[in-house]
């Protein structure tokens, strides 16, 4: 494992992106950062800009207006950048699959590394997802 990657896995910074969500997933993401769940235990910190982030947490059903911006943001992210789809909406568009404004699922727009199901997923599920993701990467290296 390269030194850079090992360092990154110690403290992956996350950037949170809502692309047409109902807010609940976003609030559960914030929940993870606050005292009861405290995802900082695993070195995860909310990054102020995509340019500082290693993990992109995407919630919501990628509507027409935010899908193009999501693509643009993903291009700005320093590589390697992992994308985590949080919630039913970003996995398959869930309830909004027939909407005129949600044409594509997230994984057709950017490559997705992990899916965390739930509507919204409980903070425990988000933490489990994040930890599994880190371990999987460690295992494949």
């Amino acid at each position, binding site marked *: 494992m390269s030194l850079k990657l090992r360092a990154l896995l110690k403290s992956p910074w996350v950037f949170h992106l809502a692309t047409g969500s109902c807010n609940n997933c976003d609030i559960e993401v914030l929940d993870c950062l606050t005292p009861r769940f405290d995802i900082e235990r695993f070195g995860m910190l909310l990054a*102020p800009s995509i340019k500082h982030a290693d993990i992109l947490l995407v919630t919501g059903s990628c509507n027409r207006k*935010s899908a193009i911006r999501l693509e643009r943001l993903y291009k700005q992210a320093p590589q390697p950048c992992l994308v985590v789809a949080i919630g039913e909406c970003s996995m398959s568009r869930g309830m909004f699959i027939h909407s005129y404004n949600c044409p594509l699922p997230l994984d057709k727009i950017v490559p997705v590394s992990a899916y965390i199901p739930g509507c919204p997923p409980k903070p425990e599920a988000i933490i489990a997802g994040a930890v599994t993701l880190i371990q999987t990467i460690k295992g494949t290296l």
Partner: protein
Amino acid sequence: MAKSVIPIGPFHPLQEEPEFFTLTVDGEMVVDIDVAIGYNHRGIEKLSEMKTFDQSTFLIERICGICSTSHPFAYTRAVEDIIPVEVPERAKYIRTIIAEGERIHSHLLWLALAGHFLGYNTVYMWVWKLREEILDVMEILSGNRNNYAMFKPGGVRRDIKAEDIPVVAKKIDSIIPTVNRLKKAILDDPVLHARLKGIGILTKEEALDYCALGPTSRASGVAKDVRKDAPYGAYDQVEWDMIVTENGDVWDKAVIRILETYESIKIVKHCLTNLPDGEIDLNIKDIPPGEGIGAHEAPRGETFHYVRSDGTNRPARHKVRAPTFMNLPTCKATVPGYTVSDATIILAAIDPCYCCTERVAVVDTKGKQMYNAQDLIRLSQEKTQSLKRKMGIK
């Protein structure tokens, strides 16, 4: 002096929802503000017409995560208004308990985020920890932390078990000392006084002109609350006070939200101890043709739903009007004249919820507006007419 423009958003770390503000500034002073939304638009009204009356409640819940009781409450009231029926007493009480639980956690969420906006992260973390207790209560009552799925046209989906009531009552009692401490810490903090008092003033006239709702209007001395003005649920059977203040600044909006939390705790406790026996659901089978309206005082103000039925099992038209739709334009009156650092908290003071508010407008690539909602409706009506003519239907 040349004016410059500061763009905020659409994906800004401070905001959990995407929205785009353009602040025109002169030095540090904001002289104009504009907001663009649409990053959350999912076409819920149209989707609702594809689902049955019962299924729609699940969709309506997902308009907004923090208002996941307010919207179903207004929607089910609108559907019940079509028939019209009165839901059973027990269902009314359960609805009130869930709605007030939501108000507590929503107001706490606002308080936390306000702290975050001010750079006062201690408040943010503290309040968020406290809010978890309320989410636990909601989980005990409904099985879910956020989307409660308790509402259905004609009643509620789940009963509150007798053995849960003492547990919940104890948990609610246990948060009161923490809220007290929080209230004291916030209301006595000289820094918060300095930051919040006298900024972002919305006068009573402006509040009336902009049709501001909820805590935004009550902070400006407009005593408007659907729960008092046209009582529904169990609100007329409980003693509680409407909190109204006069100054209309950010401080007053914060005070209102803190004090309303106490009122909500009072209502929940009263309803839990006086929960009447009986049915919880009317098992409505058919919805006759007709129209209905329903309103509910959401944490941010009045949520209004209109539903038209044509006798089938789906709504023929469903219209949603969320409180932020009325509250957001007040930023035109409150933000100009203050500094950029104040602008964030003034914008946050209305407790904006963009998920609820999203509207659609079609814009061509040159940025010129081509269609708004009216044009789209006109276009679709013209299309229907032409199809009818073609097929020879009158």
